[in-house]
Protein backbone atom coordinates (compact mmCIF):
# COMPACT_ATOMS: atom_id res chain seq x y z
CA UNK A 1 0.00 0.00 0.00
CA UNK A 2 1.53 3.30 -1.10
CA UNK A 3 1.54 6.12 1.44
CA UNK A 4 0.62 9.54 0.12
CA UNK A 5 3.34 11.63 1.82
CA UNK A 6 2.06 14.85 0.24
CA UNK A 7 -1.01 14.45 2.43
CA UNK A 8 1.15 15.29 5.46
CA UNK A 9 2.47 18.50 3.92
CA UNK A 10 -0.88 20.14 4.72
CA UNK A 11 -1.23 21.67 8.22
CA UNK A 12 -4.65 19.97 8.55
CA UNK A 13 -3.22 16.44 8.50
CA UNK A 14 0.22 17.23 9.89
CA UNK A 15 -1.25 18.73 13.08
CA UNK A 16 -2.74 15.40 14.17
CA UNK A 17 0.27 13.35 13.05
CA UNK A 18 2.67 15.61 14.98
CA UNK A 19 0.53 15.27 18.10
CA UNK A 20 0.76 11.48 17.91
CA UNK A 21 4.54 11.49 17.32
CA UNK A 22 5.61 13.89 20.10
CA UNK A 23 5.29 11.44 23.08
CA UNK A 24 7.32 8.76 21.25
CA UNK A 25 10.17 11.13 20.42
CA UNK A 26 10.13 12.70 23.89
CA UNK A 27 10.09 9.37 25.73
CA UNK A 28 12.87 7.84 23.56
CA UNK A 29 14.95 10.99 24.01
CA UNK A 30 14.64 10.85 27.83
CA UNK A 31 15.69 7.17 27.91
CA UNK A 32 18.65 7.77 25.58
CA UNK A 33 19.79 10.76 27.69
CA UNK A 34 19.85 8.61 30.83
CA UNK A 35 21.70 5.75 29.07
CA UNK A 36 24.15 8.13 27.39
CA UNK A 37 24.92 9.99 30.63
CA UNK A 38 25.41 6.67 32.46
CA UNK A 39 27.90 5.44 29.86
CA UNK A 40 29.57 8.84 29.64
CA UNK A 41 30.09 9.29 33.38
CA UNK A 42 30.27 5.75 34.76
CA UNK A 43 31.48 3.40 32.01
CA UNK A 44 33.78 5.64 29.92
CA UNK A 45 37.31 5.99 31.36
CA UNK A 46 39.01 9.31 32.08
CA UNK A 47 41.19 10.72 29.29
CA UNK A 48 44.93 10.29 29.84
CA UNK A 49 45.66 13.93 28.91
CA UNK A 50 42.47 15.87 29.73
CA UNK A 51 41.35 13.87 32.77
CA UNK A 52 37.66 14.32 33.62
CA UNK A 53 37.29 17.60 31.70
CA UNK A 54 36.95 15.78 28.37
CA UNK A 55 33.47 14.54 29.46
CA UNK A 56 32.09 17.91 28.32
CA UNK A 57 32.35 16.59 24.72
CA UNK A 58 29.37 14.27 25.29
CA UNK A 59 27.10 17.33 25.23
CA UNK A 60 29.38 19.76 23.35
CA UNK A 61 29.76 17.69 20.17
CA UNK A 62 26.04 16.71 19.84
CA UNK A 63 24.99 20.34 20.51
CA UNK A 64 27.43 21.61 17.85
CA UNK A 65 26.30 19.03 15.27
CA UNK A 66 22.63 19.78 15.99
CA UNK A 67 23.16 23.56 15.78
CA UNK A 68 24.63 23.20 12.28
CA UNK A 69 22.28 20.53 11.01
CA UNK A 70 19.15 22.25 12.33
CA UNK A 71 20.21 25.41 10.50
CA UNK A 72 20.43 23.49 7.22
CA UNK A 73 17.03 21.87 7.86
CA UNK A 74 15.58 25.29 8.72
CA UNK A 75 17.06 26.82 5.53
CA UNK A 76 15.74 23.89 3.46
CA UNK A 77 12.22 24.35 4.86
CA UNK A 78 12.47 28.11 4.35
CA UNK A 79 13.55 27.58 0.73
CA UNK A 80 10.67 25.15 0.16
CA UNK A 81 8.27 27.73 1.57
CA UNK A 82 9.75 30.47 -0.60
CA UNK A 83 9.77 28.46 -3.84
CA UNK A 84 6.54 26.47 -3.56
CA UNK A 85 4.69 28.86 -1.22
CA UNK A 86 3.80 25.95 1.08
CA UNK A 87 2.41 27.06 4.43
CA UNK A 88 3.76 24.21 6.54
CA UNK A 89 7.37 24.61 5.32
CA UNK A 90 7.54 28.19 6.55
CA UNK A 91 5.92 27.18 9.84
CA UNK A 92 8.49 24.41 10.30
CA UNK A 93 11.37 26.84 9.64
CA UNK A 94 9.94 29.22 12.27
CA UNK A 95 9.58 26.35 14.75
CA UNK A 96 13.15 25.08 14.25
CA UNK A 97 14.90 28.45 14.81
CA UNK A 98 14.61 28.73 18.64
CA UNK A 99 15.76 25.13 19.19
CA UNK A 100 18.68 25.63 16.81
CA UNK A 101 19.64 28.84 18.61
CA UNK A 102 19.60 27.04 21.96
CA UNK A 103 21.85 24.27 20.63
CA UNK A 104 24.24 26.89 19.24
CA UNK A 105 24.27 28.58 22.65
CA UNK A 106 24.90 25.26 24.46
CA UNK A 107 27.71 24.50 22.01
CA UNK A 108 29.41 27.86 22.69
CA UNK A 109 28.80 27.64 26.45
CA UNK A 110 30.16 24.12 26.88
CA UNK A 111 33.04 24.97 24.53
CA UNK A 112 33.99 27.87 26.79
CA UNK A 113 33.83 25.59 29.83
CA UNK A 114 36.15 23.12 28.11
CA UNK A 115 38.44 25.87 26.83
CA UNK A 116 39.20 27.34 30.26
CA UNK A 117 40.94 24.29 31.78
CA UNK A 118 42.45 23.14 28.44
CA UNK A 119 43.53 26.37 26.74
CA UNK A 120 43.54 28.65 29.77
CA UNK A 121 40.89 30.93 28.19
CA UNK A 122 37.08 30.95 28.07
CA UNK A 123 37.12 32.41 24.58
CA UNK A 124 39.55 32.93 21.70
CA UNK A 125 38.78 34.52 18.32
CA UNK A 126 39.41 31.22 16.59
CA UNK A 127 37.80 30.48 13.19
CA UNK A 128 35.63 27.61 14.53
CA UNK A 129 34.43 29.53 17.58
CA UNK A 130 33.80 32.75 15.68
CA UNK A 131 31.85 31.05 12.89
CA UNK A 132 29.73 29.20 15.49
CA UNK A 133 29.04 32.55 17.19
CA UNK A 134 27.95 33.93 13.80
CA UNK A 135 25.59 30.94 13.52
CA UNK A 136 23.99 31.90 16.83
CA UNK A 137 23.58 35.49 15.56
CA UNK A 138 22.03 34.17 12.33
CA UNK A 139 19.47 32.20 14.34
CA UNK A 140 18.72 35.26 16.49
CA UNK A 141 18.50 37.42 13.36
CA UNK A 142 16.03 34.98 11.79
CA UNK A 143 13.85 34.99 14.93
CA UNK A 144 14.02 38.79 15.30
CA UNK A 145 13.29 39.45 11.62
CA UNK A 146 10.33 37.08 11.64
CA UNK A 147 8.92 38.67 14.80
CA UNK A 148 9.37 42.22 13.50
CA UNK A 149 6.99 41.80 10.52
CA UNK A 150 3.28 41.65 11.34
CA UNK A 151 2.09 39.84 8.22
CA UNK A 152 3.19 36.19 8.71
CA UNK A 153 3.50 35.42 4.98
CA UNK A 154 5.74 38.45 4.40
CA UNK A 155 7.71 37.56 7.54
CA UNK A 156 8.18 34.03 6.16
CA UNK A 157 9.56 35.32 2.87
CA UNK A 158 11.93 37.88 4.41
CA UNK A 159 13.33 35.47 7.01
CA UNK A 160 13.60 32.67 4.42
CA UNK A 161 16.05 34.80 2.45
CA UNK A 162 18.15 35.35 5.56
CA UNK A 163 18.10 31.60 6.34
CA UNK A 164 19.15 30.67 2.79
CA UNK A 165 21.96 33.24 2.59
CA UNK A 166 23.13 32.34 6.12
CA UNK A 167 23.43 28.65 5.28
CA UNK A 168 26.77 29.44 3.63
CA UNK A 169 28.14 29.75 7.18
CA UNK A 170 27.56 26.03 7.96
CA UNK A 171 30.27 24.61 5.67
CA UNK A 172 32.55 27.40 6.91
CA UNK A 173 32.05 26.16 10.49
CA UNK A 174 32.62 22.54 9.49
CA UNK A 175 35.74 23.10 7.36
CA UNK A 176 37.20 25.97 9.44
CA UNK A 177 39.56 23.59 11.26
CA UNK A 178 40.91 22.43 7.88
CA UNK A 179 41.02 25.75 6.05
CA UNK A 180 42.67 27.75 8.83
CA UNK A 181 45.28 27.04 11.44
CA UNK A 182 42.94 26.98 14.44
CA UNK A 183 43.34 26.37 18.14
CA UNK A 184 40.19 24.23 18.03
CA UNK A 185 41.03 20.60 17.35
CA UNK A 186 40.06 18.85 14.11
CA UNK A 187 37.57 16.00 13.79
CA UNK A 188 38.35 13.03 16.03
CA UNK A 189 35.83 10.78 14.30
CA UNK A 190 36.51 10.36 10.58
CA UNK A 191 35.33 7.96 7.90
CA UNK A 192 38.77 6.33 8.06
CA UNK A 193 38.32 5.50 11.76
CA UNK A 194 38.87 6.99 15.22
CA UNK A 195 41.24 6.71 18.14
CA UNK A 196 38.41 7.20 20.66
CA UNK A 197 37.60 4.57 23.28
CA UNK A 198 34.48 2.54 22.40
CA UNK A 199 32.58 3.68 25.54
CA UNK A 200 33.35 7.33 24.71
CA UNK A 201 31.99 6.85 21.18
CA UNK A 202 28.88 5.10 22.50
CA UNK A 203 28.16 7.88 25.01
CA UNK A 204 28.61 10.57 22.37
CA UNK A 205 26.45 8.90 19.73
CA UNK A 206 23.71 7.98 22.21
CA UNK A 207 23.51 11.57 23.51
CA UNK A 208 23.58 12.79 19.89
CA UNK A 209 20.55 10.57 19.15
CA UNK A 210 18.86 11.83 22.37
CA UNK A 211 19.43 15.45 21.30
CA UNK A 212 18.02 14.68 17.85
CA UNK A 213 14.87 13.11 19.27
CA UNK A 214 14.50 15.97 21.77
CA UNK A 215 14.82 18.54 18.97
CA UNK A 216 12.21 16.73 16.85
CA UNK A 217 9.77 16.50 19.78
CA UNK A 218 10.14 20.18 20.73
CA UNK A 219 9.93 21.40 17.13
CA UNK A 220 6.78 19.33 16.51
CA UNK A 221 5.20 20.69 19.70
CA UNK A 222 6.09 24.25 18.69
CA UNK A 223 4.84 23.88 15.13
CA UNK A 224 1.48 22.66 16.46
CA UNK A 225 1.09 25.96 18.34
CA UNK A 226 2.11 27.89 15.21
CA UNK A 227 -0.46 25.97 13.14
CA UNK A 228 -3.14 26.72 15.76
CA UNK A 229 -2.22 30.39 15.75
CA UNK A 230 -2.08 30.87 12.00
CA UNK A 231 -5.05 28.72 11.06
CA UNK A 232 -7.29 29.92 13.89
CA UNK A 233 -9.88 31.33 11.49
CA UNK A 234 -10.38 28.05 9.67
CA UNK A 235 -13.23 25.62 10.32
CA UNK A 236 -11.02 22.59 11.00
CA UNK A 237 -9.32 24.38 13.91
CA UNK A 238 -12.63 25.32 15.55
CA UNK A 239 -13.76 21.70 15.24
CA UNK A 240 -10.69 20.27 17.02
CA UNK A 241 -11.58 18.42 20.27
CA UNK A 242 -9.07 20.47 22.31
CA UNK A 243 -10.65 23.72 21.04
CA UNK A 244 -14.22 22.53 21.61
CA UNK A 245 -13.59 21.36 25.20
Amino acid at each position, binding site marked *: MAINWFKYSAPTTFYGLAGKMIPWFAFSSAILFVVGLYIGFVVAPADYQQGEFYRIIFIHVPASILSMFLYLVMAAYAALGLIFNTRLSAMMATAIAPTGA*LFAFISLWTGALWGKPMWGAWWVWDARLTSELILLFLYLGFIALHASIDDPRRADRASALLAIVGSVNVPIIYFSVKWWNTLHQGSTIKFSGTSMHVAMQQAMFIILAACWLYAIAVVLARVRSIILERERNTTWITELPEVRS
Partner: protein
Amino acid sequence: MINLDIWMRENPLAYVWLGSYAVALLIFAIEIAMVIHKRKITLQQVRLMREAQDEAEDDN
Protein backbone atom coordinates in the same frame (compact mmCIF):
# COMPACT_ATOMS: atom_id res chain seq x y z
CA MET B 1 38.85 33.99 39.11
CA ILE B 2 41.88 32.31 40.71
CA ASN B 3 39.54 30.64 43.22
CA LEU B 4 37.46 29.26 40.35
CA ASP B 5 40.60 27.93 38.65
CA ILE B 6 41.64 26.14 41.83
CA TRP B 7 38.10 24.83 42.45
CA MET B 8 37.70 23.45 38.90
CA ARG B 9 41.02 21.61 39.09
CA GLU B 10 40.15 20.12 42.48
CA ASN B 11 36.56 19.19 41.46
CA PRO B 12 36.63 18.46 37.73
CA LEU B 13 33.49 16.27 37.73
CA ALA B 14 31.43 18.86 39.65
CA TYR B 15 32.71 21.53 37.23
CA VAL B 16 31.70 19.43 34.21
CA TRP B 17 28.30 18.48 35.69
CA LEU B 18 27.24 21.86 37.03
CA GLY B 19 28.82 23.93 34.29
CA SER B 20 27.71 22.05 31.21
CA TYR B 21 25.17 19.27 31.88
CA ALA B 22 23.12 21.07 34.53
CA VAL B 23 23.03 24.21 32.37
CA ALA B 24 22.07 22.22 29.25
CA LEU B 25 19.31 20.34 31.11
CA LEU B 26 18.05 23.63 32.59
CA ILE B 27 17.92 25.14 29.09
CA PHE B 28 15.96 22.12 27.85
CA ALA B 29 13.56 22.39 30.80
CA ILE B 30 12.99 26.12 30.13
CA GLU B 31 12.39 25.43 26.43
CA ILE B 32 9.86 22.67 27.22
CA ALA B 33 8.08 24.96 29.72
CA MET B 34 7.93 27.76 27.12
CA VAL B 35 6.53 25.43 24.45
CA ILE B 36 3.85 24.14 26.87
CA HIS B 37 2.99 27.70 27.94
CA LYS B 38 2.73 28.85 24.32
CA ARG B 39 0.39 25.94 23.54
CA LYS B 40 -1.85 26.82 26.52
CA ILE B 41 -2.01 30.49 25.57
CA THR B 42 -2.71 29.75 21.89
CA LEU B 43 -5.44 27.25 22.75
CA GLN B 44 -7.00 29.79 25.10
CA GLN B 45 -7.01 32.45 22.36
CA VAL B 46 -8.54 30.08 19.81
CA ARG B 47 -11.25 29.01 22.30
CA LEU B 48 -12.09 32.66 23.07
CA MET B 49 -12.36 33.43 19.36
CA ARG B 50 -14.63 30.43 18.84
CA GLU B 51 -16.85 31.48 21.76
CA ALA B 52 -17.07 35.01 20.39
CA GLN B 53 -18.05 33.64 16.96
CA ASP B 54 -20.70 31.37 18.52
CA GLU B 55 -22.15 34.31 20.49
CA ALA B 56 -22.22 36.48 17.37
CA GLU B 57 -24.05 33.72 15.48
CA ASP B 58 -26.56 33.32 18.33
CA ASP B 59 -27.22 37.09 18.36
CA ASN B 60 -27.90 37.03 14.63
